[in-house]
């Protein structure tokens, strides 16, 4: 494990569930994923990519994992490996997918169910704030991360919202 990865595991925002924050480390790591996606802004590149995806990807210095994630359209993995959503969305568009389609794919829902969830007010923040015990009660679903002490890495939030969180946070993960 590299030093960068060790540091990454200590980042405060890694406590936010289901979220890959596109920070400087990911930006560096995913530079070529994002530049590949950026290249799809040009029609001739989209054409070349569609004709032979693997050989088009040879133009970019991607790691084998990054290549695999792109070829498999594993959008979450692309984000994890340094892709940024505004860039990977260009790959989705090249495939003819709407943004909502890609969002649904990342959440594991069908687009129809995802769209319904949005119409009903979206994914609730309750139970989706934190992997740790600090921002959600240590219910079985979230206990895994509770061992990681994040007490000192806490966010300064208003007493009002902290109190409400303690009271209300459930495990309504959508």
């Amino acid at each position, binding site marked *: 494990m590299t030093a960068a990865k060790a540091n990454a595991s200590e980042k405060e925002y890694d406590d936010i569930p289901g979220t890959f924050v596109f920070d400087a480390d990911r*930006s560096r790591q995913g530079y070529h994923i994002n530049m590949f996606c*950026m290249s799809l802004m040009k029609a001739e590149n989209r054409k070349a990519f569609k004709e032979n995806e693997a050989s088009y990807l040879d133009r970019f210095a991607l790691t084998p994992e990054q290549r695999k994630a792109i070829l498999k359209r594993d959008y979450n993995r692309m984000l994890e490996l340094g892709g940024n959503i505004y860039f990977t969305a260009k790959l989705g568009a090249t495939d003819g997918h709407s943004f909502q389609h890609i*969002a*649904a794919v*990342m959440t594991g829902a069908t687009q129809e169910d*995802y769209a319904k969830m949005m119409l009903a007010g979206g*994914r609730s923040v309750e139970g*989706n*704030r934190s992997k740790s015990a600090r921002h959600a009660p240590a219910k079985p679903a979230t206990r895994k991360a509770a061992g990681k002490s994040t007490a000192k890495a806490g966010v300064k939030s208003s007493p009002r919202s902290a109190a409400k969180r303690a009271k209300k946070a459930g495990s309504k993960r959508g």
Partner: protein
Amino acid sequence: MARIIAGVSSSHVPAIGAAIDLKKTEEPYWKRVFSGFEKSKEWMANAKPDIVIAVYNDHASAFSVELIPTFALGCAAEFPPADEGWGPRPVPGVKGHPALASHIAQSVILDEFDLTIVNKMEVDHGLTVPLNLMFGSPAQWPCPVIPLAVNVVMYPPPTGHRCYMLGRAIRKAVRSYPEDLRVVVMGTGGMSHQISGPRAGLINSKFDKAYLDGLSRDPKKLTRISHMEFMREAGAEGIEMVMWLIMRGALDDKVKEVYRFYTVPASNTAVGHIILENIERKTKAGRPAPVRQSPSKGRRAAAHAPSLPSPASGGGRGGGLVVGSKR
């Protein structure tokens, strides 16, 4: 003297632009969104600003990962609409105001905000969608627009407090511009949304409504929201609401809220919108004068004019003191 008459904030959801371009605005789903901006268009038509300063973010259109400026001020005469993969949006090209833009750049850089100056740039939906919402779809935009692009794509974006202080510095710059111009500042983006990862679809209306309240009545409180809190509460991409604080910082402390609108969803996002007017005070000469800041508020301002040394400008701390923001 140029002066800022009002601030407007609005979401800039790309799907809103697509709905306009594909003439879907009368469909029930979209009508719910667009009807909220009918009053805003009327307000804008009456306000008739000479110039709009539009704070927005680029979405991998003008800036890729090759170059990521935190604050980039458009000083060009024209900003063509960007091709975001489906051809450029069928909207008029944005005309800039190079003279005021350069004046702002010079003023805020001397106030220790190290802006990037952009003399050639295409603008994407982040800028053109809010223009549509406020101006409709005219053949030409009715006034010049100065784009201020803020990095909210790569973490960390500038802090809310830094944004607020930049707004303050922009206000000072505008006031020192000799021509008699009426300026509206727009802050765009938000509100709560997450469009990446398994938590995509997150919406937090409670946070959004409190943010709108704070914008109207207690913006200083909003400047203390940390990046963690934005991402946790309003979604990873909801952090772009820091841009609204540039708009708010450019207004007086006390403002009149003339309109607000909130609806969920537009595609993946909560749509929020507010119009805040500066309250004009008449001087003896009958000319409007700006509302003065209290000394304690001024002290924290990034007003480090070389001729005005103050305790806050010492120590090389830079223009912005970050309060309560743990990153």
